[in-house]
């Protein structure tokens, strides 16, 4: 990592030194006018800051400060302004004129904090809370009247399922936490909050199920997350890159998903989730090679079918990496390996093609990647044009013009389809990257090169670790019991049993519910909670 920085010649950015109002020790004064000035100085040139004064008996009794853009007006009116004003009007004598009394008697709000530190007030204002300052009081009150615009938790477009819950994480972290809480209703689901990012002050939550997750891994995640030094965190990808074991590997070592059920399943298996505010992508560590090949649906579908689909994926991940390179190697080095009739067909197709097979394949693969990349960000209306151009021009016309041979088009198309069978798209990206060096190796060294490349990849994958877990577990260090969820997708009661035994001795039925229908015809099946 250090080496990489030196290589790219980039240095951590140095900020222009600003007049510090973030002085940790700055306190509110007892003069409300002075306090207003302090805050106004902090929020200089911020057009969305509102200072609302409530005058009582000719002097300013309350000063309400908030950022208009982050606060829900209706909530503010109903729960802050009206109680303060009307409370004063109706109970003239008993109306509190200092902070202490207000939260007890006037404000019907849950999350109320009192502080006298300017930095705290500023921080709370910035996350959408309302600060209430009273005259002649050195303390202010911040109340949560959050009203940030948020969308509904709808099905994430990047991870569609046929069967499974249709909700997805959104850009609001508390909603996301709620989605997890609603799935795992136990106090053992811990959520530790941290703030990362000098300027963005992004909330990052580490979630895990106490007693299932490994304490050492939790500690490691804490350590890595808290040591992040960065100005801004805009997406969980930022965090991912910081905490990854080997960022330059093509294989992602942190799983990320928009689906709450995937995260919940991971938490129940002892993994640790990292939620980041303002992004629907939640991270899950540790990740293994095989999680990259598992879809959430695998456990919702019937076991036999899920196993079949999983093997299709195993097959196609191989095709995805090796199909083009095998084609290149066999046609340029090992023509004797192809059955005679197929050989003659390929020879016929290649007869008019001016390029060597290596160049031809690289050309088509690059073209395909370009098409894919163009298609991802293309507005939907234009997308059709791209697919027509892709199919007709690149496919048919190139073959008819004799620039590209038909077998290459078939190989590249198969490869394309194969790479889409990988359920985790960041994992699929890594697989795609491997394809090109493989083609080059095949074009220079033949099958020998492919074997070299395969061995190299295997060495890398087995040496890789994600938060202390070998990446190839449970096949890398072989544990037969865990193979149930790798080579096959075992029925869920098989796995439930494995999960139960791993949490045996605790008195919480986090994974096996009470009253689980005991339709067992086998005695050894779990029949309920403890």
């Amino acid at each position, binding site marked *: 990592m250090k080496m990489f920085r030196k290589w790219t010649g980039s240095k951590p950015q140095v900020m222009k030194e600003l007049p510090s109002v973030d002085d940790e020790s700055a306190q509110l004064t007892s003069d409300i006018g002075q306090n207003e000035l302090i805050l106004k100085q902090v929020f200089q040139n911020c057009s969305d800051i509102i200072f609302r004064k409530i005058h009582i008996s000719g002097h300013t009794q309350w000063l309400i400060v908030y950022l208009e853009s982050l606060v829900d007006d209706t909530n503010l009116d109903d729960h802050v302004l009206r109680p303060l004003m009307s409370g004063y009007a109706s109970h003239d004598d008993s109306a509190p004129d200092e902070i202490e009394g207000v939260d007890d008697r006037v404000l019907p709000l849950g999350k109320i904090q009192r502080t006298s530190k300017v930095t705290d007030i500023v921080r709370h204002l910035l996350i959408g809370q309302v600060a209430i300052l009273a005259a002649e009081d050195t303390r202010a009150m911040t109340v949560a009247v959050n009203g940030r615009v948020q969308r509904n938790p709808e099905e994430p477009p990047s991870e569609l399922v046929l069967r499974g819950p249709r909700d997805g994480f959104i850009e609001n972290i508390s909603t996301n936490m709620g989605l997890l809480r609603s799935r795992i209703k136990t106090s053992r689901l811990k959520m530790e909050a941290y703030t990362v990012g000098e300027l963005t002050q992004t909330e990052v939550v580490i979630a895990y199920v106490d007693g299932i997750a490994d304490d050492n891994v939790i500690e490691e995640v804490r350590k890595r997350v808290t040591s992040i030094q960065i100005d801004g965190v805009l997406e969980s990808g930022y965090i991912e890159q910081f905490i990854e074991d080997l960022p330059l590997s093509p294989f992602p070592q942190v799983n990320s998903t928009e689906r709450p059920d995937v995260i919940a399943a991971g938490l129940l298996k002892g993994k640790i989730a990292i939620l980041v505010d303002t992004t629907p992508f939640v991270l899950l560590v540790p990740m293994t090679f095989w999680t990259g090949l598992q879809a959430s649906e695998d456990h919702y579908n019937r076991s036999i079918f899920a196993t079949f689909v999983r093997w299709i994926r195993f097959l196609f991940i191989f095709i995805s990496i090796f199909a083009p390179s095998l084609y290149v190697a066999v046609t*340029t080095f090992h*023509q*004797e390996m192809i059955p005679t009739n197929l050989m003659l067909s390929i*020879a016929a197709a290649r007869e008019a093609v001016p390029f060597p*097979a290596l160049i031809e394949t690289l050309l088509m693969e690059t073209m395909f990647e370009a098409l894919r990349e163009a298609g991802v960000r293309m507005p939907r209306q234009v997308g059709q044009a791209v697919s027509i151009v892709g199919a007709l021009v690149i496919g048919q016309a190139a073959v*008819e013009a004799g620039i590209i041979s038909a077998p290459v088009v078939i190989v590249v198309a198969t490869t394309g389809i194969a790479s889409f069978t990988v359920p985790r798209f960041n994992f699929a990206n890594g697989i795609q990257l491997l394809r090109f060096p493989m083609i080059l190796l095949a074009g220079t060294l033949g099958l020998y090169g492919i074997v070299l490349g395969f061995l190299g990849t295997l060495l890398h994958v087995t040496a890789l670790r994600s938060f202390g877990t070998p990446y190839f577990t449970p096949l890398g260090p072989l544990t037969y019991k865990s193979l149930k969820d790798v080579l096959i997708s075992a029925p869920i009661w098989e796995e439930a049993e494995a999960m139960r035994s791993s949490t045996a001795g605790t008195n919480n039925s986090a994974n096996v519910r009470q009253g689980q229908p005991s339709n067992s015809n086998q005695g050894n099946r779990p029949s309920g909670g403890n």
Partner: protein
Amino acid sequence: MKPFMYIGLLLIVLITTGCWDRTEINDIAFVMGTAMDLTDDGNIMGSVQIAIPPSAQGGPGKSRKQEQYFMISAVGKNSSEVIRNLQDKLSRRLFYAHRSVVFVGEPLARHGIKDVLDHFSRDPRTRLRTFIMVAKGNEGREILKIRYPFEQVPSEAVREMEVSKAGLGVTIRDLFIAAASEGINPVMGVIEGAVPSKGMEDSANKIFRLAGAAVFKDFKLAGFLNNKETRGLLWVLDKMKIGRITATIPGDNGNVGMVLTDSKRKITADVRGSRIKIHILLQGNGSLYENNTKLDIGQSENLKLVQAALEKSVEADVQGLLTKAQKKYKVDVIGFGQTIYRDQPKQWKLLREKWDQQFPEVDVSLTVKITIRDTGMAGPPLLLEEKEIKK
């Protein structure tokens, strides 16, 4: 920076090795079949049949009828020289891995193929699984010239014929194994070219057919076995996989046909000094496929009759083979010597040197056992009336 240096060095290793055996498909001439012949001055003439990949694409031009293969020949004093001279005539590199058949012209076969064969075992680019055949009464290259309607290249058709187990199917590998083994002499498949099929003599397209086996002695052609004798040979060599047997039923003026589904053979040798007795037991199971007699083979006596007739027919085939091998060519193609070598190695040591003289004197007894497992859906032929059927 060290890792980058290492990676750089590794890359150099990868790159500078060069692509030494890298060949594009369109720089290769696929040899599909080879023919070896003897020229008048004692040199070897090699001919190769090369497939022309039909260029289906390449411009809007509609695919016109083009040749799918062509043949070139060259003369040399040995195989290397022939190949060099062949290569001089080609713009593409000769590629032998897809060759399916090697034809040996009869004159060369009679002259001896020893000098030609070594090349096939030495050059790693040739395949030992290539079939090798003698072109009966013909030069090998004449076979390469014959068109065949089915496969893209005629040699491929020959390979298909051999693979289908109808013929002897001797590959170069089989030939070497037989030649290197004790007490057996190699045989080869035989192909006969330009034979008009009966009934269509005036057809312009003369095709080739498998025609039995060729018997070699000291790598020189000793003679041919006809199809019947070859069938007997297949069974005796335990190479028979499937086969059809026909027989005439004595006293009924009709015939039957059966298909063998499995067959076994057992050869036992009894050596007492110079008195050698060989017993051959052939066993076969199969189903009856044709019954042109008036017999109701649903009856077990009739079935026995049919089986006996079939056994007689096989016996005649094998007997014919034995007569030819022992009396005419005096070549042990069946491997009686091998049986003695395996069962009584001590005796073989004494016999080995004079086996060629001993072989014709060997006393051979033959037993054939055929069992019909399945007589089909009908007992007697359906077209007969009830009273015509012999119960």
